[in-house]
């Protein structure tokens, strides 16, 4: 049974001041309407995972880890590997998250990101097959938001993309094809077969204004949300409208035009950041600092 999402109560005067600023083309944190917060992406901060990432989107922090395992393919897709996405929203990220069975919001978050990556065919799943119909690679992708300052969807999508790009696939040698016996050689690895980098862009509607990358406060005063997934070729590959408001036709069309430009920007961010940022334990000091 789906009821209300718990939201913080924002005073009317603050809502009014946010809308007034928007009418002048400005936002609380000084951004323009269609501007992202600063994005930092770190690859492989977790050594025990096969691939991992930490994304900082302004103050929003999301950690993503990928664990590989070998399993049986689904009966209807014997020639494809598979990936499973899961998001866990714990009180570490926000006082409004609770422990317990996955909430509707966490299921939506995982499924929206999953749909974007899957529809865009980012990973060539056919290359994850070891023995057709018997043994394939399974990617368990887990999303852990650790600080929710708004727009968890885009931050999580960036995190998943970065983690996938940093995942190393061990070599699997077939010992007995008939009985499905294989041997995993952990030291010989190859990167995952990636076709192209998709992008996920989320807009919120606050009053009559459409803004990109909402912060936590903006999410709390917004009436509706729309998330676009774009392939690396600039095609639309997934959509999700969320929250209890609606969008006019013109507003949807505006968000596609802006979304396409932002998608390009995000794609470049991912490749640039992954190329230049440090990997491994060094990351921890940068993110959380040394304790004094």
């Amino acid at each position, binding site marked *: *049974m*789906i*009821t*209300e999402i718990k939201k913080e109560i924002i005073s009317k005067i603050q809502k009014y001041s946010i809308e007034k600023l928007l009418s002048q083309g400005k936002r609380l944190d000084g951004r323009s309407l269609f501007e992202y917060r600063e994005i930092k992406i770190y690859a492989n901060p977790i050594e025990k995972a096969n691939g991992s990432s930490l994304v900082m989107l302004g103050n929003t922090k999301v950690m993503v880890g990928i664990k590989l395992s070998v399993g049986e393919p689904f009966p209807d897709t014997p020639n494809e590997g598979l990936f499973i996405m899961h998001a866990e929203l714990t009180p570490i990220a926000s006082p409004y998250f609770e422990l317990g069975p*996955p909430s*509707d*919001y966490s*299921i*939506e978050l*995982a*499924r929206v990101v999953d*749909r974007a990556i899957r*529809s*865009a*065919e980012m990973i060539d799943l056919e290359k994850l097959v070891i023995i057709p119909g018997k043994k394939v690679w399974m990617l368990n992708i887990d999303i852990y938001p650790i600080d929710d300052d708004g727009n968890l969807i885009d931050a999580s999508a960036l995190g998943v993309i970065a983690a996938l790009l940093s995942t190393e696939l061990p070599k699997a040698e077939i010992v007995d094809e008939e009985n499905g016996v294989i041997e995993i050689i952990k030291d010989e690895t190859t990167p995952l077969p990636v076709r192209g980098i998709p992008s996920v862009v989320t807009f919120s509607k606050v009053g009559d204004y459409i803004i990109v990358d909402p912060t936590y406060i903006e999410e709390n005063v917004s009436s*509706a949300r*729309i998330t676009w*997934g774009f*392939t690396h070729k*600039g*095609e*639309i*590959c*997934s*959509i*999700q*409208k*969320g*929250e*209890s*408001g*609606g*969008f*006019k*036709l013109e507003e*949807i*069309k505006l968000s*596609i035009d802006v979304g*396409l430009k932002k998608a390009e920007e995000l794609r470049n961010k991912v490749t640039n950041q992954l190329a230049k940022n440090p990997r491994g334990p060094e990351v921890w000091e940068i993110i959380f600092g040394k304790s004094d």
Partner: protein
Amino acid sequence: MNQKKNEEIILMDENGIRSDGRRWDELRPLRMEVGVLKRPAGSALVEMGKTKVLAAVYGPKEIHPKHLTLPDKAILRVAYRMSTFSVEERKKPQPSRREIELSKVIKEALEPAILLDFFPRTAIEIYILVLQADGGTRTASINAASLALADAGIPMKGLVSSVAIGRIGDSIIVDLNDLEDKYGDADIPMAMIPITGEFTLLQMDGIVPPDMFEKCLDIGYKTILKIHEEQKRTLRERYLKIKEEVMSNKKPRREQR
């Protein structure tokens, strides 16, 4: 979405006729009925081709647990469930992640239309049961739920109407069946409040170039208006019948059963 599967299954022949004999812009046979159940405050049955969905509305009623109460408006609760026999292979009775997500998006599709601030401190509950699934269950659910809300006499800005638009190669298609949903190139379910022109549900699976997507939106808009007409006609028919029965001093139909 998989090229190989597309080659095996022909979704549209060279004359532009779809696998079930429809043209690209043709809806499946649409059947709507309101007031089909006795106990709920409002109910509706919607059939879009082989997809059959039942919706029931209770409320405004007391909220349990009480801490969910809102001081300024009613809360809306939606449960979308599929019966175990609605699909080819028996569905497990526990709610799946898909059902939880759909409950959420259906709730958010209906909520903008309902005047929840008329009933503070209460709950309005919508229960949806998919009896048979053949593609487009969420769109049929929204159509049924909005009829059931009207049948329950819940004040609304307008009815919510919904349809899925899809893509097979270069052609846009309307109201996808299961086969087209699975093997087509894109599936875009959408819902709108035709009276205010607001889109309240928009999702997509598959790939569509942006310029084609705008066309899909316009076609969706027009198709939703058709469904809206049918919803209005269904309600009008039902209540005119009641009016006639009252005028001729007969017991209303609901009591007779």
